[in-house]
């Protein structure tokens, strides 16, 4: 039996508000399942459970604002669940908290500053004026749902709740907003018509949007300031020929429907993951004056958020994923980031980050390391140039890749070998599959 506790989703997080249970008492849970949704000042974050078992008892109420480390639920092993559950209940809660405060077994609470860069990305769809507000307080609803309803001028009385005891949860309000503004500014809605009237952008909408952006800006500012204050960066740059990779991608994609096509981002992730396995000094975390290399390779991918800001959540175990799986995971991650909701583990545990400018940028990007990581790979916009072969020139495509790394952990020599190996993998695309 263990406790599922309020996770720390960033070094500056002191508390969070439990806004949804994704599992109910009696449900079986498996490692990696999303068990709850926690709202922080930076957005709604899905929290995963880190063991297999049964959700035996919920210890707190929805809507409670709770300090990091507070036990939220009891996870049992299923077999002796009822007796353990009874034991847990018979203990005074305060005692349970104090005895388990330091041993958060059920959730990884590594605090990592990239978590600071989380924000709700879909504020645009949340604030459309709809109807007048009536008696919001008499309805059972989560605080996040109430706030969104209030901001959006939605009448909670008119909604039916899908949460426990029919409480109205955030998703209920969101779907009400989607229904009422169909066709306007609503991503991922399949059948919206074009005829919806564009609601005026009210002052409150602008204000809410600005608040969300300010939160994200502040989070990025904190993480990046800490990085530049604490990490002695060194920078290396390497220009790599891209023609073989381009031919590889074109050939693959020619035989595929758009949904199954590859994007360069997936191949960059794969090349970096394969290369870094030989350079552990770039894949890990620097904490408390000590560098700890990570065995697992979880590549964080910097993803731009429409309207400003970015987050860099991880794709896990990139070294053991095939290229198609990498692409699927990347697409899924981008879609969820743009919807403003992703998993706690994804933001808290990247071991190395890639930031790629895509096809509309400039030649090169020199990244700022996300602490406590120790390196970031920058990938510029591919371009064309000429090279001299046997005295004559030929046109080629190139991309410039850069490395920013932590000089406390390693030196430029190893960095240059690492960067060169990434380039080598990009020129041997068959190895990236």
């Amino acid at each position, binding site marked *: 039996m263990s406790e599922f506790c309020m996770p720390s989703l960033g070094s500056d997080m002191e508390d969070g508000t439990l806004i949804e249970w994704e599992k109910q008492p009696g449900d079986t849970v498996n490692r990696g399942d999303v068990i709850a949704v926690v709202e922080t000042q930076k957005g709604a974050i899905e929290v995963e459970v880190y063991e297999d078992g049964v959700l035996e008892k919920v210890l707190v109420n929805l809507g409670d604002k709770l300090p990091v480390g507070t036990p939220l639920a009891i996870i049992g092993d299923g077999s002796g669940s009822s007796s353990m559950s009874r034991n847990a209940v018979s203990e005074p809660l305060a005692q349970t908290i104090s005895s388990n405060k330091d041993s958060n077994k059920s959730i990884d609470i590594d605090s990592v500053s990239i978590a600071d860069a989380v924000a709700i990305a879909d504020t*645009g*769809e949340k604030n459309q004026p709809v109807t007048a507000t009536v008696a919001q307080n008499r309805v059972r609803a989560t605080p996040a749902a109430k706030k969104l309803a209030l901001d959006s001028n939605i009448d909670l009385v008119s909604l039916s709740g899908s949460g426990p005891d029919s409480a109205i949860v955030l998703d209920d309000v969101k779907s009400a907003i989607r229904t009422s503004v169909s*066709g306007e*500014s*609503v*991503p*991922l*809605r399949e059948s*919206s018509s*074009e005829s919806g009237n*564009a609601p005026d952008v009210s002052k409150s909408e602008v204000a809410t949007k600005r608040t969300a952006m300010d939160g994200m800006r502040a989070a990025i500012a904190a993480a990046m300031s800490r990085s530049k204050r604490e990490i002695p960066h060194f920078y290396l740059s390497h220009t790599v020929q891209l023609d073989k990779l381009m031919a590889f991608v*074109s050939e693959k*994609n*020619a035989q595929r*429907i*758009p*949904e199954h*096509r590859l*994007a*360069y*981002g997936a191949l960059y992730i794969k090349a970096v993951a394969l290369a870094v396995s030989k350079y552990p000094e770039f894949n890990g975390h620097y904490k408390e004056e000590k560098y700890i290399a990570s065995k697992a390779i979880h590549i964080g991918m910097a993803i*731009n958020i*429409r*309207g400003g800001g970015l987050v860099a959540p991880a794709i896990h175990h990139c070294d053991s994923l095939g290229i198609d799986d990498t692409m699927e995971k*990347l*697409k899924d991650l*981008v*879609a969820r980031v743009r919807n403003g909701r992703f998993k706690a583990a994804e933001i808290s545990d990247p071991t190395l980050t890639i930031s790629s400018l*895509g*096809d*509309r940028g400039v030649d090169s990007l020199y990244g700022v390391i996300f602490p406590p990581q120790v390196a970031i790979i920058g990938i510029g916009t591919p371009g064309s140039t000429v090279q001299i072969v046997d005295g004559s020139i030929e046109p080629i495509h190139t991309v410039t890749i850069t490395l920013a790394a932590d000089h406390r952990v390693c030196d430029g020599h190893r960095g240059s070998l690492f960067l060169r190996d990434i380039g080598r993998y990009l020129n041997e695309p068959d190895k990236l599959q």
Partner: protein
Amino acid sequence: MSENVQSIAVESLRHIAPDINIDDVDPKMDLRDAFDIDSMDFLNLVSRLAKELELEIPEKDYPDMVQSLDALVNYLKHRTA
């Protein structure tokens, strides 16, 4: 059909770039700049258009499509004609 193509193109762009008001877009401007879409967004756009219009859209046609909103609509009209 051609008006339908136009509205499907606009609607698909709305899903990809919900914050952009289509009335503010210069229809001759580079599509990626006008809607601030990256390669992943564009792939999603192509996937959606291919499904909605039941078209095969090969990757080699992308350069024709990204030139502008007008170019995209013209391309789709031509392909569905």
